[in-house]
């Protein structure tokens, strides 16, 4: 960031909206505003699209994470110089990732292929074929810029390393080998009840009283056995917290919401040709999504400048109102509105006291929320967790791995046919909500240890990486050394061997829309819907008069490819 390329000055210097950061919510807002005929300048300090939603080459991921893990850099001297009209408020980054832990077990193999990786920073994340984000992609025509593949299956994992098929559809229930006949009947009847309820059939209507009750109570009332309850709650409705322990459950699913989730899942199956299951993943990784919206915005006239850090906000001295930004190039650009990505934090100028109106607003702006964190892990292997399958989701329901496990752990394996890694390799994305770093690490390690063989670290080339992360928590191999020496005998027979891993915890910063609008960090959900809601909310906040992507009748006419290539899903309804 020291040597900023010599950019020609940006012209014009006044815009309706400046968006900083090309993460998904920012990109959607930029595209929506451009579509609403606003002049938009979209900036990103990084040389790539996507910010915290990007997919990065192997070599770039650690540096991206560590850049966002340090405390704010001291404000640059020149940016604190107030001009006559403006107060200059320095922007600095806040730490968003903590206890970053990169382990390299096969440096040579990976070095050769580093550029062939597209690793999601905010994984695991997928689309449901019928969810809001797919709707948005179709409505906006962003589907022209993306291709998808179906996720083959969903499994529920247990503490013995088994992966049980989730009977998530009629065909899957029929085929399932682990359910008894009674269980099959009960589960299918429950699905039918939900379908009938959603279709508005009078005789199967679920009462309002039930709809307002906790989903888990409703499942109990329907007499579903624990195994099926667990499938429905955690592998289909994708509940995050232990629904049966109100002590630890921060998000108790209501029946209404549970039913909606099931309906979404059900509507997702078979929505697109070539998509066998309910879930989709974009080829080249989730970074494609932000980029698709940026392209959409660019088509509508949005101006893009990457590698352009913003150093400060310009604020009206008298009113305390936002006026513009100061770029790292030194140029001042002005706009009516500003959207910031969650990286930034406004600091008060060290010397002078800020204007009073601002003083009142700032505390809110820099307020820290305590929603806990999300622990994420990225692992690379040479063999699939399931011999005959490439892309799939695994859910570890609460308490399935160890008694104190309060949240679901989700794992997504993506293979090279989705262009996220070199041929023959597999990328595993793991995540779980947690209260603090230690808890997060424990959750991710539990999964890694049960599914993978972690080789001992031996090469010197690791030393550098190790030392960098030495203080940020216990390393994977330590945990494993312990468990494998005390464990019974299994030397990891048949388990894939870990080649590389990155474990980190991420802040769950929310979007804000008071003084300055800022977008949220990637959340702990499996899909993008809540993030899209947040983007819509921010858009409505800054442009209450404008419609969010007005529906046009002929949005994607030239989508004619017949889509039966090699299982690529082209989104056509």
């Amino acid at each position, binding site marked *: 960031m020291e040597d900023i390329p010599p950019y020609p000055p940006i012209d014009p210097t006044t815009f309706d909206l400046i968006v900083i950061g090309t993460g998904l919510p920012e990109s959607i807002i930029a595209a929506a505003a451009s579509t609403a005929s606003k002049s938009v300048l979209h900036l990103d300090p990084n040389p790539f699209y996507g910010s915290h939603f990007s997919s990065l080459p192997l070599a770039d991921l650690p540096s991206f994470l560590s850049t966002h893990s340090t405390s704010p850099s001291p404000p640059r001297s020149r940016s604190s110089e107030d001009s006559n009209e403006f107060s200059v408020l320095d922007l600095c980054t806040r730490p968003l990732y903590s206890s970053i832990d990169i382990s390299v077990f096969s440096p040579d193999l990976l070095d050769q292929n580093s550029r062939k990786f597209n690793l999601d920073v905010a994984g695991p994340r997928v689309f449901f074929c019928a969810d809001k984000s797919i709707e948005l992609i179709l409505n906006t025509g962003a589907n022209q810029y993306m291709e998808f593949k179906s996720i083959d299956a969903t499994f529920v994992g247990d503490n013995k390393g088994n992966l049980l098929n989730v009977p998530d559809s*009629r*065909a899957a229930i*029929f085929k399932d080998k682990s359910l008894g006949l009674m269980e*099959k*009947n*009960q589960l*299918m009847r429950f699905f039918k009840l939900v379908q009938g309820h959603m279709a508005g059939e009078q005789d199967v209507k679920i009462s309002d009283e039930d709809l307002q009750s906790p989903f888990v109570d409703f499942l109990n009332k329907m007499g579903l056995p624990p195994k099926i309850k667990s499938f429905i709650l955690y592998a289909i409705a994708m509940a995050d917290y232990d629904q049966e322990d109100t002590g630890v459950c921060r998000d108790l699913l209501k029946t209404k919401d549970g039913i909606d989730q099931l309906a979404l899942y059900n509507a997702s199956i078979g929505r697109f040709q070539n998509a066998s299951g309910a879930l989709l993943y974009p080829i080249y990784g989730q970074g494609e999504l932000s980029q698709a919206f940026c392209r959409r915005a660019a088509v509508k006239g949005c101006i893009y400048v990457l590698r352009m850090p913003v150093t400060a906000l310009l604020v009206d001295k008298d009113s305390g109102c936002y006026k513009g930004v100061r770029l790292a190039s030194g140029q001042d650009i002005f706009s009516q509105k500003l959207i910031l990505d969650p990286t930034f934090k406004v600091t008060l100028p060290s010397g002078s006291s800020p204007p009073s109106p601002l003083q009142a607003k700032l505390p809110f702006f820099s307020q820290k929320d305590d929603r806990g964190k999300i622990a994420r892990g990225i692992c690379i292997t040479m063999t699939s967790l399931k011999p005959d399958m490439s892309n799939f989701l695994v859910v570890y329901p609460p308490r399935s791995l160890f008694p104190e496990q309060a949240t679901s752990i989700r794992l997504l394996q993506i293979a090279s046919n989705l262009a996220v890694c070199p041929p023959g390799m597999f990328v595993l994305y793991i995540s779980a909500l947690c209260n603090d770093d230690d808890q997060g690490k424990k959750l991710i390690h539990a999964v890694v240890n049960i599914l993978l063989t972690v080789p001992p670290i031996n090469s010197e080339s690791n030393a550098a990486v190790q030392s960098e992360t030495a203080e940020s928590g216990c390393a994977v191999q330590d945990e494993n050394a312990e468990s494998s020496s005390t464990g019974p005998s299994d030397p990891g027979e048949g388990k894939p061997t870990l080649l590389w891993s990155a474990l980190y915890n991420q802040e769950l910063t929310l979007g804000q829309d008071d003084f300055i609008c800022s977008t949220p960090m990637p959340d702990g959900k499996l899909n993008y819907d809540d993030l899209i809601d947040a983007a819509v909310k921010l858009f409505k906040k800054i442009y209450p008069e404008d419609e969010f992507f007005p529906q046009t009748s002929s949005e994607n006419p030239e989508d004619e490819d017949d889509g039966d290539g090699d299982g690529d899903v082209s989104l056509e309804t």
Partner: protein
Amino acid sequence: MHGRPRKAPKPEDEAASTAKAQKLRALQTQFFSFHHDQIYTKEAVELSAKLLEINPESYTAWNYRKLAVEHYLSQPECDPDSVKSVLDDELRVVESALRQNFKSYGAWHHRKWVLSKGHSSINHELRLLDKFQKADSRNFHAWNYRRFVAELMNRSEQDELKYTEDMIYTNFSNYSAWHNRSVLLSALLEKKAEGFLLKENVLPEEYEFIHQAIFTDPDDQSGWFYNLWLLDQTVTTDSPLLVSTWPTCGSDVLIMGDGCQSGSFSPFTTLLSDSGSFPIILYFNQPVEGVNSSTVTIECGFNKNGYLHWEPLSVSNSQAAQVWVAHLKFPTSELDSSVEVSVGHSKGIISTRGVHYCHPSTFSFNVHVQPVERDSFQVSVAESILWREENFKVYRAQSEESIPIAYFDQLCIKNGHESTASNWRTEALAKEIECFRELLSLMDCKIGKLTLARLLMAYNAMSFPFATKLVHSEVLELYNDLMKLDPTHHRYYKDEHSLVLLQKMTCSKESLLQHCFQYKDSGSSVIGNPICLRLNNLSLSRIGAFEKLLWVQMLDLSHNELQSIEGLEAMQLLSCLGLGNNKLRSVTALEPLRKLKSLRVLDISYNQIGDHSIDTTRYLCSSPLSHSVGTGVNKDETVISDAALVNYWEAFYMFKDLNLNQLDIVGNTIADEKFKSALVKIMPTLKRLDGKVLD
């Protein structure tokens, strides 16, 4: 392909279809002229292709193309390469026709025709089928063609079985896939292919498989169909069995004249015969062919040559029947003789499935003949049978009477033979019963109840000697439930209910005796002195259990809800039949009676004959109209001489062979004076019509 609502055509669609029709008409005219003049030039053939592309249903065009191909192939300059290219062209035309209409019979047939010429690549066919079957996995044309292709390329049944499995896993609501599975399994079992040697090893796995479908979605019918096939495979023994006979083994039969009664004989086995012969009835568990005097031999003192004419008792006049009858002549002098009947000791009795009868059995009985006095019948005519309550009194069995039903246990010939082999069958059924009881404990399921009812009856029949009477009550309860739950199929359930009820009543001597009555004072009756079996007022809609009722000579079925008397032809000894106050709707519904040569007294009063303008049984009944008139009918006889009878030709066919003395037909729409006078002409033997003595 399925479940798509039909849309009303838009105006522009109609215009388009008019334009299409116009184009088609022009093409068609041109095409027909080519066809008529047998022109097979390139242009002419291309024109037919164009026609077929628009309308694949044009059968004439397909046939024309066949002729064109044959014409081309017969040319002297035709070499193998050009043969192949000609046939490949045909395949292309078919393919584009199929794209137009996937369900075109003509197109699929044409493809088969081309393929069977043997010059085309078969591998391509499977790929094409995969594509079509992906688009519409249930399409029976494609499945049918698939069987053809598989056979042509000698694809193993095992591979095809695997394919059905894959298709079923994709979506188990697929009749075609399940059906193909049953076809393939039948073939494999018949071939005794490796791994398919024994039914008892194959079927349990299939049961396991189908349970997955049934339990996952009991509302889906396709699985139940397959289940039904499996049940049939389980229940039906391959080889036919003799389940019942008359006379029964070890019985004493008294054949006698006008009411002289010798005390030692039971009224159950006393038979009055005016024809000089008495019937021997064989009742099998399934229709069989090849019952004749070489496969069934008789040894007795009075029929020296041993020849007997065996007649199949089936309404359809086919050569296969479940019941066979022969009439054994007896001498006019007094006689005491034993008769031994040997069934199946020489090969030839064969089931309709082609399996041989392989349980040779022998039964014997004693016959006592008392000569008939010449004019005994004349005398008895004066008396009429009145189906009145006061004319019947409960029959009290004499202490050690030889009641034919006492021989039930001996009739159970099958158990001795198949006891070990049928173990797996009873086990499989018991498992199924348990399984469906469980399903019904979870939910109310119509087809589940029906299946359980069927299973219980099949199980009961299979474990015959140990059958429990409780089963009947449970099954009856199930059918009662079903009638309430599923009113649309009420009549079917009612029929089944009736059959079970009859099974229940005939399952033991005690229960049967409750329905046995004596008509008036013993000894003075016109019909010897038989016992009357009264099955009246039971709201029966169907009758069955004939294998236990072969001995019945007098049967009261009045005040029921019978619409059909199917199967009654088995009761060869019947001489008096009361069918009053039922729901018989047509004369042709009486068809089974034509086979009852001993029937003298018939009451069909107060039915609905003539009520309904549409006669649903007319085309089932053997008449000149259905082209199924048996060999027994003399052509000359079919010429109806009397003009008055022309209007009643059905009645003519029904009644002309009956030797009725007494008929009650009052209370039917059809029975006006004209009809009655026609009846009198048809049946010269008739002495009493609706209670009136005829001159």
